[in-house]
């Protein structure tokens, strides 16, 4: 049970990071919750996760990104989106979760800002602002050059700015 308690304390420490990265990519509270659960299930099965010298943040960021992109591709998610689009609710969907994990206004603002971006741009914005990684860390994480990181970030920021300018008059 000591290990269980230790794992719980690590979940509490990193759940915000993992959830915000997943939400930044998926823009859906329920999907982000699923991805967070999957990420920590993998962490639970990772033998090094409880080791003191293990770089948990880097590992969790990578797994959270992978889980979020897997979720984007999943058939269940597409079916859920289709049903939502058709005005039907998903049986396993818990609306209270959406209300409780992130405050509604924060969620709506983030969604409004990020929905105009494509996957790559959302990912890099998430790494920069949700995970608060440096340019070097992002470059290492994505396996690209720092210059590419900067240009992608700049393009994403420009896009966000443009999107907001279009919305503001109304």
């Amino acid at each position, binding site marked *: 049970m000591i*290990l*269980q308690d230790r*794992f*719980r304390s690590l*979940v*509490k*420490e990193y*759940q*915000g*990071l993992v*959830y*915000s990265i997943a*939400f*930044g990519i998926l823009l859906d509270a329920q999907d982000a*919750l699923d991805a*967070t*659960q999957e990420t*920590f*299930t993998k962490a*639970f*099965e990772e*033998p090094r996760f409880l080791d003191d010298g293990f770089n948990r943040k880097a590992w969790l960021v990578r797994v959270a990104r992978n889980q979020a992109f897997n979720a984007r591709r999943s058939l269940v998610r597409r079916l859920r989106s289709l049903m939502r689009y058709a005005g039907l609710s998903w049986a396993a969907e818990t609306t*209270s*979760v959406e209300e*409780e*994990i*992130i*405050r509604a206004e*924060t*969620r709506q*603002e*983030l969604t409004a*800002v990020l929905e105009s971006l494509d996957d790559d741009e959302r990912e890099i*914005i*998430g790494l920069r*602002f*949700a995970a608060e990684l440096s340019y070097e860390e992002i470059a290492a994480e994505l396996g690209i050059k720092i210059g590419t990181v900067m240009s992608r970030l700049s393009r994403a*920021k420009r896009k*966000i*700015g443009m999107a*907001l300018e279009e919305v503001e008059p109304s």
Partner: protein
Amino acid sequence: MNEQNLQDLFRSARQDASASKTLTDAVMHCVDPAPETTPAAVLRAVARNFVWAFAVLLVCAAIGSLLTQAAGEMSAAMHPDFPPAGLLSQRSGIGDVSLEPDVVAVFDMKPSFSFLEILARAVLPLSFHLLAAWFLLATVGISVSANDRLEQRSAV
């Protein structure tokens, strides 16, 4: 919106998610062990699974039997004279192996079975029986709890 606003938005989202007990509980629910792992609890769970599986087995088997019976009746209605009565009477004689030409002609007229008939006569009843057997095998089982895995890992 500037960079600071976006930073604040994500920080706010992170803080909300970090403080969410719902999220912690949802995550821990995926990795928590079963609440009871004593032998008696395991036996109770197996017995409960068995009762459930057996009930489904009975229902599936009953549906399969009904379908088999219906298929037999349907077959009799569609092919009332198969095998031909003439052939049966000819073959009833002891040691009588030679058939008259008209009887051979009747014997050669094999009844044709439509796809739907094959489905109704064989595939559906059989699939229900197979479903029943699969359900029985699949439902009665015990999985190793997450706690056991964690304990094993800590022992290593």
